[in-house]
């Protein structure tokens, strides 16, 4: 079974005047379809860079990125937008909800550009926000906002759900519930989920654990002893 996501020698360099900063220095890994993958590493390890490249928000300097058989590292800007539009769901640390839209509208913002979306109300119900669908983000707690963000990402039925420190701005319990939501989503819908975190305590819940350090993959392992989120403590 070939990998659903495959990164081959991905290099990302930024030039800042005379200085060249290497954000990713030959990253290689593979993720199987339907896996819940956690990429873990300290700040500046290049996790976000890799996630951005994988999500079509950024391009790599060298190397190839293949998602579901498509080499996205070779896509044109326009194709990249389509890729983001139809294949990718993003969840950010700071939710990035549109403040001027209600929870439901934030989900609709994504679903309206998608050919076969999940109904906004339904998905919000699934993430447990049925009672708050007409609230503005400012009226929601951080966890609730993140749930809206997840609902927004999932509404598009993405092939790949990319989460950048989804619990980073949340308290412990809320963070846990969010992680549970992500894990459940992965299990139920079979969506491949990639979560970035600097918290290695989260690794036991993952199917696959990729450790990064200094812009490189330090290790990649398949977790055979998957621990449910509830059991994890940090």
């Amino acid at each position, binding site marked *: 079974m070939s990998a659903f996501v495959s990164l081959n020698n991905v290099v990302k360099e930024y030039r800042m005047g005379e200085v060249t900063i290497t954000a990713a220095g030959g990253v290689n890994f593979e993720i199987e379809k339907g896996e819940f993958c956690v990429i873990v590493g300290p700040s500046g390890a290049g996790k976000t860079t890799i996630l951005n490249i994988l999500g079509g928000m950024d391009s790599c300097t060298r190397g190839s990125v293949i998602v579901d058989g498509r080499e996205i590292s070779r896509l044109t800007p326009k194709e990249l937008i389509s890729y983001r539009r139809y294949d990718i769901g*993003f969840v950010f640390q700071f939710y990035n909800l*549109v*403040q001027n*839209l209600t929870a439901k509208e934030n989900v609709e*913002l*994504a679903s*309206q550009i998608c050919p076969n979306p999940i109904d906004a109300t339904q998905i919000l119900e699934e993430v447990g926000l049925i009672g708050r669908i007409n609230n*503005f983000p400012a009226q929601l707690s951080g966890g609730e906002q993140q749930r809206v963000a997840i609902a*927004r990402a999932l509404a598009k039925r993405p092939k790949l759900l990319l989460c950048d420190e989804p619990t980073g701005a949340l308290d412990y319990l809320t963070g846990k519930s969010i992680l549970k939501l992500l894990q459940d989503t992965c299990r139920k819908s079979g969506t491949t989920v990639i979560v970035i975190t600097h918290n290695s305590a989260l690794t036991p819940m993952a199917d696959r654990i990729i450790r990064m350090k200094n812009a490189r993959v330090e290790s990649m392992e398949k977790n055979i002893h998957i621990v449910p989120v509830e059991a994890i403590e940090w």
Partner: protein
Amino acid sequence: MVKRSARKKGANAFAKDVFREIFKTKSRFLSIFLIVALGVGFFAGLTAACPDMKLTADTYFDQQNLSDYRLVSSMGFTDGDVQALQQMEGIRQVVPSYWVDTVLEMDGDSEVVKVMGYDFASLEEDPQNAVNLPVLLEGRFPQAPGECVVEDTEEILGVTFQIGDQITLASGKEEEDLTETLSTDQFTVVGMVQSPLYISIERGTSTVGSGKVNAFIMVPEDTFVGDYYTEIFLRAEGVEVLSSYSQEYRQRIDALTPALEQLGEERSVIRLEEIRQEANEEIADAQKELDDGIATQQQELADARQELDDARQELADGEQELADATQEYYDSIADAEQQLADARQQLNDGEAEYESGLREYEIGERTFEREKKKALEEFQKAETLIAQQEQELQEGQALFEQMRALVPGNEEVAAVLEDPQGDPAGTAQMIARLNALSQADSSQSWAEDLAAYLSDPAGMTPAQNAYHLAVLQSVNTELDEQESQIETGWEELEKGKQQLEEGKQELAAGESQLNDAFAELQKARRTLDDGWAELEQNEQTFQEEKEDGWQKILDAQQELADGRKELEDGEREYEEGKAESDQEIADAQKELDQAKQDLAQLETPEWYVQDRTDYPGHTDFGEDADRIAAIARVFPAFFLLVAALVCLTTMTRMVEEERVQVGTFKALGYRSGAIASKFLVYALVATVTGSLVGLALGMYLFPTIIYNAYGILYTMSDARTPFWLGIAAVSLTVAIITVSVTVLFSCWHELAEPPASLMRPKAPKAGKRVLLERIGWIWNRLSFSHKVTFRNLFRYKKRMLMTVVGIAGCNALMLTGFGLYDSIRDIARIQFEELHHYDLTTVLQDDLTAQEKAEVEASLFQNPQVESSIYLRQESLELPSESGKSYDLYLIVPQDPSQLDTMITLRTRNGHEPLSLSQAGVILTEKAADFLGVEAGDTITVTDSDHRSYSVVIGGITEHYTSHYLYMTPQAYEESFGQEPVYNIVQSILSDPGGEAQEQLARELIAKDGVLAVSDTSTIKDQFDDMIHSMTYVMLVLIVSAGLLAFVVLYNLSNINITERIREIATIKVLGFYDREVSAYIFRENVILAVMGALAGLGLGVLLHHYVVITAETDLVMFGRTIQWTSYLYSTLLTLAFSFLVNLVMHFRLKAVSMVESLKSIE
């Protein structure tokens, strides 16, 4: 020390921070810089335009020593006048001069050229004191009579004179020769000039040619030969330092004018006396000359008469003689003709006689011939008969003789019978004889019987014997008779022969007679022929003699006719000569009478004191400049307002962005003032640099553009655009204050917050439901993206307001620009197309003679080229207002008020309801009514030139754009002014206006006595058209400026919008919105705002336009008040185009937004 150095260090760090900030936020800095530069530049530029224009003009006037006054007098000026003026106080220089209007024939057109004398000699010597110094553009100034300098006539006449060209001028008046005024009428062009007296294309009116001066030329003063000056230029004392258009100058001049007018009145009386005296002498001389002339004429005429009478007598004698000769001729002719006729008659008689003789002869001849023939036939017949008779006779004789021989004698037989045997022989013989007889003649049967009887003598019996004997006896008697018959026959034959002979003789005699007659006829013929020949000869002679005689008579007749003709010629010559000399005398007499009358009627000459405002174009230029100033009062203020708003939003955003830093500074212990000063300095650096750039460019650019736009209309020096410190200072101060206030206003709230809350990121502005959501039936119908748009619109209210205001401002400015153009165009369009219909106005003298009037009417009322004409009374009145200012007003009284609407439409501006002149009230033009604040039903007071006041009731206010007019009926005039109106102008509509025919007609009219001026509407309209043309540049300036404004405002606001919502934009990009969708997401708001702004701008523009129009109007002109729908359309379309342009630029800006950067964790 420490403190100070610390402060210094702090100040350095502070300055560094500020400049780094500037460097970091270039686009924000630039937007403040630009809007300030634009606002200040526009303000300063437009404000400076008016003073620049006036300065340019004034500098030009000063450099060219433009006179402050021009004096003209109806009778010229003398040296005495000049001296009097020189002694006047406040007069610096008195320059008497000459001018004359002439006519230049060019390509079939006659152009009116004003010839101005100029003292070029002293110009060379002392240019400082040369008044109205012409600017030499090319060539040189004239040095000798016969040389001239001309102006560039390309625009005026469509022809440019070249240096070296020869021009020939004519007086333009039939009875006058130009050489009475000028020493030569031929000039060589030696140079090109422009004169400060003529800054516009207007050259004034004239009494020659078309009535309008087309161009001027300047010639040396001594070219003029007149004995008095025709104009005097004055320069007033101490006014050259004042601007020609300033109040101070005006006041000085206004103060001096009455003194000049006073002097004029005094001098005029003296001048009149001089003229009277001079004229009286001249009249006396002329009278004497005339009297001499009359005497000479009488004598000469009498001599001629005598000569003619003699000739006439001679001619009459000749005629008598001829008549006699002719009679004689006719008599002699008649005699000769009678004689000839007699001779002819005689001849004809002879001829007739001859003819009858001849005919007789011929008849005789014919008869004779016939007779002769007959006679000859008879002769022959007779001869034949005679011969036949002769033969018959001879045969009868022979037969008889035979018988006789054979027939026995009675005695013998009787003897035998008595003796039958007596003689047997004798009886036998007898028997033989008898037998022979019977044989010879069977009829003589008797003989046989007898022979037979005799032969048988036996049988003889006496009875028988007797019988036989009796028979024989009868035979013998018959024989005897025969014998006698024969004898008679012979006799008769003889007689016949004789008769024939006689006939033959007779025939011969007749022939001879005939021949004699013929001979006689021949003779008569000869005589006749001779007679004819003679007659012919005589006749020919007569004919010749007759013709000779007739020719002689004809010759004599010709001679007489010639003589008669000669006499007639002489007579005619005499009459002509008499008429001519009579006419001459009459003319001279008339002239003399006229001169006497003129002298009697001679009015005191009048001085016309013209100051600079009367110079062509001078006032117009000032008004044009003032118009710009009026615009400058409105527009820049608007710009500053928008600039302030832009500055406010920009700085608010800046303060928001710097929030954390403000908190940090505060936490570090900086005071609010110090922190605020950072923003202040930041903004002020942008403001001051922007202002300086704006001032530098604006004060040069705007006045130059505007001046050059007007340059089409005016001839002056190049634009002067000094840096007006006052304007600069005001602009800068206003900009600095505005910006400072906005900066302080925008950071007020932040500075009041405690550092701790400042350090926290400002909670994003919470989403809110908008009012529209409560109206479910609309909201639910909106698409998702439209909902978002509406939510956003109301979320950023301040920005929304700003955008609307900015775009509204832009559209308002453009609409004002376009509307201003419409308004000015309307003056010409409505005034000359909808309100005034006449093409030609002819101004007549009040005291027009019947003859003059008839002549004018022939040209204007009975001319096929003129469609219609009406008589009107026009009078100048003053209309004093409550403010103390008084307005010039024309009173118009149509002779036939019902005809007025063919020339002038009176109507209300709103609704175009027609007004008609009635006795109830006068009709006043709109602008004048506005000045006085009066309406229909009110009473106004007008004053005439003698300061008499009259009150009239306004019956209506009519739409009108140029000058002020008051219309009233003749009855109303009579009631108000107590006299019947004298109609002194004629307005006419031509069938072919503007053509060659019109010019021809104008020329024809101006040449007439009693016609003071002719003005054609198209010329006035053309002037307005030029003004409109120059307005297009001003409009362009406004539109471009408004566009720039719109662009800067929209760009700035969009920029702020984007930075403020950068995370939102990045988010939707991450979500997979295409670039187009991203732009639409943001710009849908902009489009709605632009449309709202544009609509608001239309409303605002209408108000602004109204204000500008009212301020920009001069006293005499009302601008159109209506903006065309196309202007609404154009300005709105342009505004939307500008906002579209901004969106386009922003589209690329959005495309470039980096998701990764924008979504990086919040600082």
